[in-house]
């Protein structure tokens, strides 16, 4: 079985979790005997191609046929400025950096025939994202033509690549699978960006099968996008760990309770603060750390100051690379109070570092974990109780840490990939039966 896959990023050049998830998933597929051609807007040449073949969309000449401007894709796309909420898995710093950089790239290079244009994709989440999304579709059409006969199914990851997936399906007639790593509702709450919503919905309607990263996401897809339930399957993410366990010397004796993620509405940072204040009322030997940054950061800092707990509640700012591991290694409890989390990899990383974890019931990862304390994100009393219990009764914390590690080690991409492969087989059979 061969799959033509459209992504937006691929390790090592990633801004967030999408690329990491795609990497784990393609490895798993390779182990399951599936050949993957992975198209990214911009390939750098140093991608790990042991398991897949990476195609750089920036190297493909997109041919503009007459009447191209009237095509379905172009009609539905308006170029627009984007805001950071639209993009999954990206930090505000990253967004700022990319936005300023994207002003420099993204020019069309005319090489000879004006109807043959090679577009230099940034492959980032820049200000001209919508334009890149549309151009990516043009390139995808060309890729699908050139690779004719080399794939049996098309797989597109997140809304950024849906137009590409649809275009490839149009020219090849192969079945399309779209993968929802996050929905617009997760990113923006109820105040959704209607353009993104329309692309997501259009992509899922055009697809033969929709994969959701959790039942939570699957329900949103069915209820808020009106996609027929039988067309949507859940494939829980897994996690791959690099072996970079580091021993970190602890500076403070107090127990450390950590929140790590973007400080945005979606991640529920304010509930963490309220729970912290409750815990600190009962026991002084705990420190809370909020690692990350985001549009709610100043609001959260003010709230911490007002609650009078700023000497026990610390902010690290945005953490990168080794500092993330260091933060996990220093933590005694990890809390993910997300208001809405399609999946949520970070608790798995915490558990992998032997840290007992509290997660919100409104997260996809809650569906696959038994040895994590689960609370409603808004129930700060329950959250405070759980934190208090884990830091005060060592036996409880140790149990969760030990069992949690076993559990997280059991989450394999191979298993997830097998399920994805089944999905491929299903749509290929459907297609064959139709013809």
């Amino acid at each position: 079985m061969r799959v033509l896959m459209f992504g937006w990023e691929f390790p090592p050049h990633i801004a967030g979790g999408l690329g990491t998830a795609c990497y784990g998933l393609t490895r798993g597929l390779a182990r399951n005997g599936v050949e993957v051609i992975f198209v990214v807007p911009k390939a750098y040449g140093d991608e790990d191609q042991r398991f897949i073949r990476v195609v750089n969309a920036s190297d493909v000449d997109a041919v503009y046929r007459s009447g191209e401007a009237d095509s379905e894709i172009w009609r539905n796309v308006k170029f627009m400025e984007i805001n950071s909420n639209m993009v999954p898995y990206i930090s505000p710093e990253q967004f700022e950096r990319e936005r300023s950089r994207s002003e420099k790239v993204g020019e069309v290079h005319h090489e000879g025939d004006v109807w043959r244009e090679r577009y230099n994709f940034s492959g980032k989440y820049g200000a001209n994202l919508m334009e890149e999304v549309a151009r990516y579709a043009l390139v995808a059409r060309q890729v699908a033509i050139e690779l004719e006969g080399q794939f049996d199914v098309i797989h597109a990851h997140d809304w950024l690549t849906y137009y590409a997936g649809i275009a490839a399906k149009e020219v090849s007639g192969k079945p399309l699978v779209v993968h929802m790593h996050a929905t617009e509702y997760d990113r923006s709450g109820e105040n959704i960006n209607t353009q993104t919503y329309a692309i997501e919905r259009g992509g899922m309607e055009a697809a033969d099968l929709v994969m959701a990263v959790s039942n939570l996401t699957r329900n949103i897809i069915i209820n808020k996008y009106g996609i027929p339930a039988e067309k949507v399957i859940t494939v829980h993410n897994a996690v791959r760990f690099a072996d970079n366990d580091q021993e970190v010397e602890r500076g403070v004796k107090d127990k450390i309770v950590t929140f790590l993620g973007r400080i945005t509405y979606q991640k529920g940072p304010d509930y963490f603060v309220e729970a912290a204040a409750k815990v600190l009322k009962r026991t002084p030997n705990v420190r809370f750390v909020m690692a990350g940054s985001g549009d709610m950061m100043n609001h959260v800092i003010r709230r911490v100051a007002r609650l009078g707990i700023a000497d026990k509640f610390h902010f690290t700012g945005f953490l990168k690379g080794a500092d993330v591991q260091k933060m996990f290694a220093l933590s005694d409890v990890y809390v993910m109070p997300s208001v809405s989390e399609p999946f949520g990899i970070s608790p798995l990383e915490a558990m992998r570092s032997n840290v007992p974890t509290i997660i919100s019931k409104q997260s996809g990862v809650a569906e696959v974990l038994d040895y994590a304390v689960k609370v409603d994100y808004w129930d700060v009393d329950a959250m405070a109780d759980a934190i208090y219990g884990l830091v005060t009764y060592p036996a409880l914390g140790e149990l969760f840490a030990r069992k949690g590690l076993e559990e997280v080690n059991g989450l394999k991409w191979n298993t997830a990939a097998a399920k994805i492969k089944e999905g491929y087989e299903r749509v290929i059979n459907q297609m064959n039966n139709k013809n």
Partner: protein
Amino acid sequence: MKTVCLYFQVHQPLRLKTYRFFNMGKDHNYLDVSANRSIMQRVAAECYLPMNNLLLRLIKENEGAFKVTFSISGLAIEQFRSYTPEVLDSFRELAKTGCVEFLAESYSHSLSSLISPEEFKKEVEAHTALMKEEFGYTPTSFRNTELIYSDVIGEQVAAMGFKAMLAEGARHVLGWKSPNFVYANSLEQKLRVLLRNYKLSDDIAFRFSNQGWGEYPLTAEKYAGWIADENTTGEVVNLFMDYETFGEHQKASSGIFDFVASLPKAMLATGALKFGTVTETAAANQPTGVLYCTHAMSWADEERDVTAWLGNELQNEAFGKLYGLQEKVHELNNEDFNYVWNFMKASDHFYYMATKWFSDGDVHSYFNPYDSAYNAFINYMNVLSDFANEIEIALAEKE
């Protein structure tokens, strides 16, 4: 004959380095040594040394007719000792002329007077001892951090034996009254209060190099003329400003040093003006009235209150947590801890946490090492948390 009272404030805080959560418990060096050194050396070269030399020359030329008053914070002196001892030498030269008065103040340029009379007194005593040690000089008058003043603070200052104190000629306190007279504290009328003429002071401190200002360029003759003019009523004209005005806020290229160089002659030539130090001026003029100031005022911002330091929840939280350590620090009475305690109290840290940066943003951002009030708060609290932690450890060891 009106008395012109020139007073300059000299202060540099010890700036904190970027101190992250990961540093806590391991790293107890909180200061950005290289920034503190380079700023001190720069300001010394651009302001303190050239201005001290100029003042010394003017004092000698005018043979006792030209007088100035200084206050130098304890933290500034500490840094002079470490980075620019030549500045201390030049202040000693000035002290020897007999035409220069040094005021007492809070050692740390702190806000202690707003929260703890005990800590306030300790700081003033420490600063007085420092003045004696460095300049062989015992201050007789007082000025509080950023001219913070209230009836109660004045009363405490009087109880410490000072004769006069400086304050802002704030409109909301003075009402129709003029700052150009000597006033008495309302609770302890022995204490005389000199009020800053902010209009004339800011003509130099803020407007001197502003080419959009109607009076630009300001000459010493024009300025002396305004003060000598009979429309400028009163007996004393108090020109109080940051010493860094000369060469830092107003660069040498603006002609500020030439202005100062011509000022004594221009003032004295009017025949209506003389110079006086703070104590001298306060003693020579009977108070015309009692100054009522129930709420603390200062010379900062449009509001002339203390909201530049204690105006939002970040500042209040940091302030409360800092002074929560007071008793423990004194119980320890350890040199290293006192050193940190002193620089942590500096009002500047709280100034960096201000969020009301509109009209006065420029002033707030001057010398400000942080890009936002929130970062200033986070960094300060990280240092403070580690310091508090170390205090607990030291106290436990002591027992």
